[in-house]
């Protein structure tokens, strides 16, 4: 299985407020920006922004509930996120591959001067 990790996911989970929000969503199985903001020391607007970030990386998904969106943890993506984070070495594998490509390309441009 190939696991690709993206910096967005690290960034999404790296924020303490968003981790608290994931905590609350796991505990309550669902929540809205309003209900989450009632339990966090941040504004509803800030919570809504964080939910957008979590939604973008697929950790939550939204359903329309009246005038508000109701968010739930996406269990499958959450499991994938865990797998990806466990495989954090893979991000470095990708970076190291790019380092290799770049260094070898630079070396090639220098080759005419160094082959003798």
């Amino acid at each position, binding site marked *: 299985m190939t696991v690709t990790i993206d*910096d*967005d996911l*690290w*960034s999404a*989970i*790296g924020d303490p407020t968003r*981790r*608290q929000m*994931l*905590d609350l969503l*796991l*505990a309550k199985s669902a929540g809205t920006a309003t209900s989450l903001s009632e339990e966090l020391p941040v504004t509803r607007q800030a919570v809504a922004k964080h939910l957008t970030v979590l939604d973008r990386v697929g950790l939550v998904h939204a359903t329309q509930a009246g005038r508000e969106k109701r968010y739930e943890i996406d269990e499958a993506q*959450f*499991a994938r*996120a*865990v797998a990806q*984070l*466990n495989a*954090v*070495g893979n991000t*470095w*594998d990708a*970076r*190291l591959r*790019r*380092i*290799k490509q*770049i*260094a*070898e390309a*630079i*070396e090639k441009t*220098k080759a005419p001067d160094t082959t003798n």
Partner: protein
Amino acid sequence: MEYASIDRELHIDASPEVVFETISRPEHIREWWYADTDVRPEPGSAGELVWADGDDPRAHVVSMTVVAAEPPRLFSFRWTHPAGESAREGNSNLVTFELVPSGTGTLLRFSETGFRERGWEAAVLEERYLDHGLGWDKFVPRIKAYAEELVSAP
């Protein structure tokens, strides 16, 4: 699951001098990490890695501080420490590149350490996933205690 260290080795068909420049110079860091940085390859040089996202040029900003820059054999830096804090063990990860001449090329030894020492999100998240009943708030102090044990071990 071991979070303490990531270790990799790879051969690169380029001289250690070229590899050193590739891993340490801002114009090349932009190519392989997709990040802009003001950090220079000099010990103590501190700055940021900056990723843009759409119309936000500073969508993701991470601190970076060079620990060692000894061309062409060693480049190491700490990163992901909180903005405004000096990089040290416990608040950042340490990335080390060792460059060893190998034939006409370079053996690049890479390591990143510091995950466990910090109670890094990967460990926290896995625990959280395995046991939904346990909150971050309960788990993080436990990791911290464990990290301190590690640090104080001889």
